Structure formats: structure tokens, C-alpha cells
């Protein structure tokens, strides 16, 4: 823009673009969609930052970050071209920068508070985080991890998802001996089994996990706590235990015909494709099959992942069936946009009524009904209501149920005095402490199904509290606190 050349100080109104694979190309592969920015673009983007100073009545980028990354400080270093120092600042608070630089809903968090964003597009903070993490990995700057002196305290972390990895990373940095137990053969939890390769390459998760391992964390894969040792048994050997076992239990519609062949939970579908690499069948042994038309029920990020995965597996049409309207779609806008670009059809204001099968027990159709929005419900969103008599049929050979997940019951079931809520989550206080002394919980097992970054925020708070418990203050809230929490939530 010539105007800009004259006044170089003038703010560039939009984020510098993120190069992407074209929709036509990317629906044919599982490679990552955004390709990442180069160093020059990152520096230019960083120069859009005004380096706001905190003030009494101001909400700044940092206030929106669940793990409290010192955002202006790291951006300043990017402006100076000092990437090494910039990523070091991020790593002070953030154990999985390459992951969060990709999957964080920054538009509602740091970027949502960005002052530049009041009148223009906010500074692309997420992109900068991603750039720095990728830069670090490619430079192999991972070599220098400073080991702190040992405190002699032992901590067990159950579940190597975003919450558990954060706790492990933070406590290892403080000199505690951390042992992590993970049920699956690879670490990462939802990052590995849930989020598809084209949004988060598994190589990146592996590198981040490797970083944590090299910080001195001992990792035991294939270990299902509750079936092997219980939390009580862990407490005999460890000074503190963190439970981050996630929301692994798929929710069902409970409609007629749901157990027909071809109908599966989003968890099964994504686990087959992502964890077991069924998209590379028969090079990998786990099979997956999609029919000509795939109908995904639900409107969240998981539903978008299912619908977009289906296109890549070669279905002719991928349809999202969601009972509210576009404005209420719980998925991130970016995900909805990507899905639309790739040709996913949105059948909005429609809900399934039953599933119809053929003679061999395979699903062939979904009967659905049109919906309209009424008054807001408890969630604040307008309540969907059936329009009687508006039933219609969609042919489908594959149906994916992506309407949510519930907390994994294994640890609560095998830990008798761990208080849970009505929803089955573990009751925790502000610091993540549970009703059992020495045991913390965080992530989806404590909050219900939420996001990666909120789980990391939980992990961060729990790690602080655990550190205090391990080093100075062994006090614990009274049992009544948890009685109350388990009723309230």
C-alpha cells in the first residue's frame, strides 16, 4: 500500500495472511492446512503490537491467556528478531507452544482482548506462538534444558493429555521427580487420538512430549490407572497425585437404531483415524470405512473434525446435522470456515429422530426433523424446538455421533473417597484440590468437556498448588468444602 510507505508508523489493519493449502488440494490429503509463516512475516506481524502497558481498568492480551504467557514481552523479542529469547519467554509458562499455537481459541482469549483488535484485526498472537515453536523445533533448540536441583519429592500424573503434560512439565521445572501414567500407547491424550493430523500433526505432539520427557519426566505408556494401581496405591509411593484422565466417554443420542453398523461415536472414528492411522490402511492395520454420504451429528470442533476427516477419506458428501443455527455453532469460527471452504454441507436447525437400517444391519438413512429456536435456555443459547410434522430423510451410509463426551469414570469409580459431581466430574476447588488429601484433578475430568488450553490452565493452577503443598504448606480444605462443591456443580 503506497499510503503505508509514506507513513511507516501507521497500523496495518489486518493480520499478515497465513498461507494455506487450497481447499481443492487439501481435501485429498491429511497434511496440515495452514502452512505457517516465515520469519519476516512474523517480525512484521509483531510490529503491529502496540506493547500496551497494564493499567487498572484495562484488559490486555495476557489477561485472556489461561496459562498467563507474558505476551507483550515475547512479542517485543520477536520485534527485535530475537526468536530464541521469545520462545524462552513463552516456555516459562507454556509447555506445549506448538500445540497451542495451532488449536487455541485465541480469538476469545489473548486476541479477543487485543487493543489493536478494537478497530482492526488483532495482532496474530496465536500465529506468532506457532511460528516460534516451529522455529525452535526446526532449529533443534530443544537441546538446552536446565535441570533444577532435586527437591526429593515424587509426583504421579495420571493421564498424559494437555492437563497432565502441563503439570508434569511445570513440576519437573521446579525439581520434583514426576512419573506420568498414560493408558494409550502414545502420549498426548486428545491431541493424539482426537484432533486430526491436518489440524495438528502428530509429529509436533511427539516433539512436545519429547521435550517434557527430556525435562526429566518418566513416562509409562499402556498404564491404565484404576485397572493397574489405584490412586490410593499411588499415594503410598508418591507425595502427590494429579488426575487428568479427560472426558473419554462418548455421549449418545439414544435414538432408535443407533447400534446399526456404520454408526459410530466421534471418538471411535477419530481414534481409528488419528491414533491408529486408519487413513493409511492397509499400510497400517486398523480399518475405517466411510460411505458415499457421511452425516455428522453435532456442531462443535469435534463435529467439524469428523466432517472434514470424512472428505479426506473419500466420501462424496459430508453433512453436518445441527439442531441450532449457524450463530450457535459451538465450533471455532475458523473451523466452521475451513469446513465450509472444503465443501461440508451444513444442515442446520435439524435434529435426528431415528436411524434406519437395511436388512443386513447397516445404517442407510437418518430420519430428521426441522427445528426452530425458542427462548434462551440455561446455557444462554436459544432453545431448539421441534417443528411438528417437518420430518425428512437423509440417506447416509456412515453416521458419526459428535454430541459431546463425559468424564472418564475409571478413576472416580476406583477411588472410593473422591467426591464427584452430578455430571461425573471430580469435584475440585479453585486450586484443583480434590476431596482426597494429596490428590489434584484438572482438565476435562474436572471441568467436563472443554478445550486444550483450559485443561492446560487447570494444570498450571494445580502445579502451583502442588508445589506449595510439596515444599511448604501441607494444609488441605475441610471435607465440607467438597461436599458443597459436589452438590453445586
Amino acid at each position, binding site marked *: 500500500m503506497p499510503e503505508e510507505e509514506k507513513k511507516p508508523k501507521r497500523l496495518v489493519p489486518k493480520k499478515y495472511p497465513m498461507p494455506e493449502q487450497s481447499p481443492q488440494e487439501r481435501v485429498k490429503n491429511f497434511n496440515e492446512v495452514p502452512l505457517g509463516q516465515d520469519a519476516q512475516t512474523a517480525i512484521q506481524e509483531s510490529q503491529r503490537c502496540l506493547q500496551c502497558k497494564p493499567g487498572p481498568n484495562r484488559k490486555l492480551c495476557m489477561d485472556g491467556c489461561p496459562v498467563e504467557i507474558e505476551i507483550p514481552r515475547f512479542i517485543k523479542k520477536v520485534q527485535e528478531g530475537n526468536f530464541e529469547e521469545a520462545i524462552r519467554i513463552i516456555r516459562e509458562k507454556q509447555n506445549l507452544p506448538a500445540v497451542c499455537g495451532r488449536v487455541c481459541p485465541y480469538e476469545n482469549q489473548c486476541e479477543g482482548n487485543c487493543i489493536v483488535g478494537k478497530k482492526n484485526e488483532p495482532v496474530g498472537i496465536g500465529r506468532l506462538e506457532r511460528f516460534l515453536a516451529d522455529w525452535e523445533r526446526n532449529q533443534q533448540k530443544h537441546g538446552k534444558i536446565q535441570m533444577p536441583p532435586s527437591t526429593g519429592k515424587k509426583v504421579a500424573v495420571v493421564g498424559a493429555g494437555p492437563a497432565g503434560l502441563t503439570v508434569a512439565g511445570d513440576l519437573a521445572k521446579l525439581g520434583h521427580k514426576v512419573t506420568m501414567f498414560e493408558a494409550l*500407547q502414545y502420549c498426548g491424550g486428545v491431541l493424539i487420538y482426537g484432533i486430526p493430523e491436518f489440524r495438528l500433526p502428530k509429529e509436533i505432539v511427539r516433539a512436545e512430549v519429547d521435550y517434557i520427557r527430556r525435562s526429566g519426566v518418566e513416562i509409562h*505408556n499402556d498404564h491404565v490407572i484404576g485397572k493397574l494401581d489405584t490412586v490410593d496405591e499411588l499415594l503410598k509411593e508418591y507425595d502427590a497425585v494429579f488426575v487428568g484422565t479427560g472426558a473419554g466417554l462418548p455421549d449418545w443420542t439414544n435414538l432408535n437404531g443407533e447400534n446399526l*453398523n456404520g454408526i459410530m461415536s466421534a471418538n471411535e472414528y477419530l481414534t481409528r483415524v488419528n491414533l491408529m492411522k486408519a487413513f493409511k490402511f492397509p499400510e497400517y492395520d486398523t480399518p475405517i470405512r466411510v460411505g458415499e454420504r457421511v452425516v455428522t451429528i453435532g456442531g462443535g470442533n469435534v463435529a467439524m473434525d469428523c466432517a472434514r476427516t470424512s472428505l479426506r477419506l473419500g466420501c462424496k458428501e459430508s453433512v453436518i446435522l445441527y439442531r441450532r443455527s449457524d450463530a450457535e455453532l459451538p465450533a471455532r469460527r475458523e473451523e466452521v470456515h475451513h469446513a465450509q471452504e472444503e465443501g461440508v454441507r451444513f444442515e442446520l436447525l435439524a435434529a435426528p429422530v431415528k436411524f434406519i437400517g437395511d436388512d443386513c444391519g447397516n445404517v442407510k438413512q437418518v430420519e430428521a426433523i426441522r427445528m426452530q429456536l425458542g427462548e434462551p435456555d440455561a446455557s444462554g443459547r436459544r432453545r431448539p424446538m421441534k417443528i411438528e410434522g417437518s420430518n425428512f430423510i437423509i440417506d447416509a451410509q456412515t453416521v458419526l455421533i459428535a454430541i459431546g463426551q463425559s468424564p472418564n469414570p475409571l478413576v472416580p469409580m476406583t477411588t472410593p473417597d473422591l467426591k464427584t459431581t452430578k455430571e461425573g466430574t471430580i469435584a475440585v476447588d479453585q486450586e484443583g484440590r480434590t476431596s482426597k488429601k494429596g490428590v489434584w484433578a484438572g482438565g476435562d475430568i474436572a471441568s467436563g468437556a472443554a478445550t486444550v488450553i483450559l485443561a492446560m490452565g487447570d494444570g498450571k493452577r494445580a502445579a502451583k498448588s502442588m508445589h506449595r503443598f510439596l515444599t511448604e504448606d501441607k494444609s488441605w480444605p475441610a471435607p465440607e468444602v467438597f461436599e458443597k462443591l459436589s452438590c453445586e456443580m
Partner: protein
Amino acid sequence: MQMYEIVKSEKLTPDVIKLEIKAPHIARKAKAGQFIMVTPSEHGERIPLTMADFSPEKGTVTIAALEVGKTTKQLGKMKAGDSVFSLVGPLGLPTELHKYGNVVSIGGGIGLALMYPVVRAFRQAGNHTINIIGAKNEKLLIYENDIKSVSDEFFVCTDDGSKGHHGFVSDVLKKLIAENKKIDVVYAVGPIIMMKVIANITKPHNIHTVVSLNPIMVDGTGMCGSCRVIIDGKTKFGCVDGPEFDGHKVDFENLTARNKRYIPEEQLAMKRFTEAK
């Protein structure tokens, strides 16, 4: 990456492999009736396999598999000293053990591998164990002596009459019922059709019947629902709610249909595996 070393490999029949694998943490916790998820190699599939035995002293678990598909064929080629990529367990709920009285346990085919630790546990719990085992022919009878060693009464059946009763395990059960034998519990493990027949026989007599199901699983820990089965009209997960269920409440038709979900892919994987040799 942790690997799990095979300490002993043995062919029980030309198509049944028995592997004893080092996994002290699992052996320490395993109970009769539970299963483990096995992934032979990094590109492999996770499949649920019966635990045929476990020894906390030796720190090993023993699995037995009928070589019907690519993954089990791959296991069938493994020798002592080889390692499997991933081993997760013990999974599922253990067999509910009480002093029931007279327990009739019935096993067929590869189900006999699971039956052994279960009947051993029934006997240790103070039950009178009446065990009926069956196979197509004498050569395919596995765990015969092991099961016999924990039997108070013992019956062998073969489809071709090469050993024991010429006919099905269900014939012997019918005969016991006809003779007014006191039966407190029936336990059945084997092919779906066998378990269904047994459940149909005991139902009119109101004999509590437990069956051990074998649905297709992916994670085996309650995450995915691939293994969902219909029990008394309600959806349950084979991996965490089972694998044992009340045989009178199981929707066997649905289980049969669901277990056929991936037959074309299974055949393709098998073809590739045999041709690659």
C-alpha cells in the same frame, strides 16, 4: 518406547498360538475373566485377547489367539525373544466369584483358553465345577488337561466324534438338565452361536447364565464404543461394563451383525499379509 518380551511361544494347534509375555505390572493385578489389548507392531491393530493365564511370581501373562486374521496371524509367527509393541491391561471386569454351589462351565474353540483361569477361580472359590469343553475335532481341543485338572466333573465333545461325546456341548448341558442335576450357575465362553444356544437352553429353566462376549474393540478402555452391545435393550460397552454379561439379556443378533463390520477390510489385510510372505 516400551516393548513387551515374549518368553515362550507355543502352537497349541496349527491355528492357535499361545504366547507368554513379560508384563509384571499386569500379572500382579490380573484376575480371571479379564482381557488385554495387544498391538503386535507399531503399524498394528489393537485387539482384545483373552488372558489364558497370568503369574505374578514369574511376572508374565499368557494369551492365546486363534489365527483368523492378519493381526492374529502376525502373532502366530512370533517367537520367544520377540517383542510386542503394546500391551494394555488387565481390562474389563473380572468374573464375579462367589460360592454358588454347582457351576457348569461350557467352552468352545478358542474360548477354552479363557475358560481355564475362570473355572480354576470358580473352584478356588469353593464351587463344585462341572466343565464341558468342545471343539470341531480332537486335534483342536486346547487346554483340555488344564481344565480337567480343575474339574469335579468333566465332559469332552467333538463335532466329528473323534473324542468324547459326538456332538455339541449344548447336548451335554441338555442332558444334565434332563437328569435334574442341580445347576446354580452356567458360564459359557466360545463362538457367539454357541453362547446363544446355551442361553436359550437355560432360560426356560431360570438358570443364571453368564456369557463372555467378544465384540470389536479399538481402545478397550471405554473411550470409543466400538464394542457396544445391547443388554436388556440398553447399550453397554463390552470393554468396561463386560466382557461378561447375563446371557439371557444379550442381543446376540446385534452382536453377530456388529462383528461383521469390517469383513472386507479384514480380508484385504489378510491377503496382503499372506502375499507379502
